[in-house]
């Protein structure tokens, strides 16, 4: 049986564009809304590692995989870094940068009439 999905109003487009990140509560769950470039993403505010409020960590770039003693900056503002243990997650895919099996729980985001909805 397919689970019924509903969408919930979570923020306005203007709010999210200005703040870049909002922590909202939807259906009793904390969700991090992120504006990355033109796109919006919604990730559950629980780190899969140790249940930290992952979405409240710094949003940043990172050092990309490189050759020994080379440093390459990239993914600017596309990374959220968990405030407890520093795990880096890709805000676009939700994936942990070390272990691809580890991923943030994500939700579909819909935009309509200036409002941001999360589909749960």
């Amino acid at each position: 049986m397919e689970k019924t999905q509903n969408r919930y109003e979570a923020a306005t487009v203007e709010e999210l564009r200005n703040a870049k990140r909002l922590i909202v509560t939807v259906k009793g769950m904390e969700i991090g809304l992120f504006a990355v470039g033109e796109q919006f993403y919604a990730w559950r505010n629980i780190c899969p590692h140790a249940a930290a409020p992952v979405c409240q960590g710094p949003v940043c770039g990172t050092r990309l995989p490189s050759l020994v003693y080379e440093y390459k900056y990239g993914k600017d503002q596309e990374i959220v870094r968990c405030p407890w243990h520093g795990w880096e997650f890709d805000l676009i895919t939700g994936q942990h940068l070390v272990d691809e099996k580890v991923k943030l729980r994500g939700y579909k985001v819909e935009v309509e009439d200036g409002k941001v909805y999360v589909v749960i």
Partner: protein
Amino acid sequence: MTKPKIIDTDVHNAIARTEDLLPFLPRVWHEYWKSAGAGYGGGWHSPIGVLRSDAIPPGGGLPGSDPKHMLEHHFHKYGIDYGILTGSGILGISLNPNPDYGNVIASAYNDWLVETWLKASSVYKGSILINHADPQAAAKEIDRMAVNKNMVQVIMCSGSRMLFGQRFYHPIYEAAERNGLPVAVHPGTEGRGIAGAPTPSGYPTSYLEWHNILPTNYMAHVNSLVCEGVFEKFPLLKFVAIEGGIAWLPHLMWRMDKNYKGLRDLVPWLKRLPSEYIKDHIRLTTQPIEEPANNEQLNQILDMVDAGRTVMFSSDYPHWDFDNPKMALQPIRKELRQRILVDNAIELYGLNEAPSAAVTDAKAAAIKGE
């Protein structure tokens, strides 16, 4: 073809008399060698000495200084097919304050090793001694000696002024990889010569205390090698951590992995978990094997480090803390014991075939002048 049954990866061959090195040493250094020796003093005194008193050759001299006697007293006695020679009283030449002296002594030792030991029996396999304080010279020495196929690895002391992963040392790894040889380290020089203190908090009081804590230096070097990306830069390199114990490694692997998951951006050249580099590139030797009261705990520790491919038997003959191959590995379950006793060393050193008894005896007789 007969497969070897036991390979001993840490056997100490000693220089019988100081003068024995002179034919291989430039004339300008003769007096210095005769008066100063290897010259990396300091260290801790053991009341029982480092060398086994039962291993003194019949003609006298240092234990481990007579190739013929060692064959009988150690190899034939325990059915050991090959021994990887690791030197004696000279390994710390990297810690002499004068790197030019370190270089010539290392070269003289290597030439002496070939003439005195490797030509004495095919049972003996050599380690190319290098002076790690001068990596460019060490690389040249590796190239010079690697043409002798009875040299099966590079060796240097684990006492040092810097951590071994640092770029200063990379010419050594580049040369070793180029020649298809593992790089081994051996402990015992920690806190001696120009090495740093043997612990970050200074100097232990007794030989016992110093000997207990040697593995912390191994932890520091292995950690450095992995974090600095040595195994990304030199993907074929193997690094042998001789006589440094085993049970500390699971802790280090797990701690490194845990930190890497949060701090990978500090070492963006690593592409895998640190523990995976360790299992692929670090090899350990058994002696002095840990002896927990419960044998099963040893097996568990060995499993944690994937000992079926990472750990090799060693006796440390003729040192005081010798491990008897017939006794020391008994707590280990059978199929794993076989891997440790011989298979891992066969694979690392390419010693697929046991030396034939005829060849061994003929060469031994020739050296004796019969």
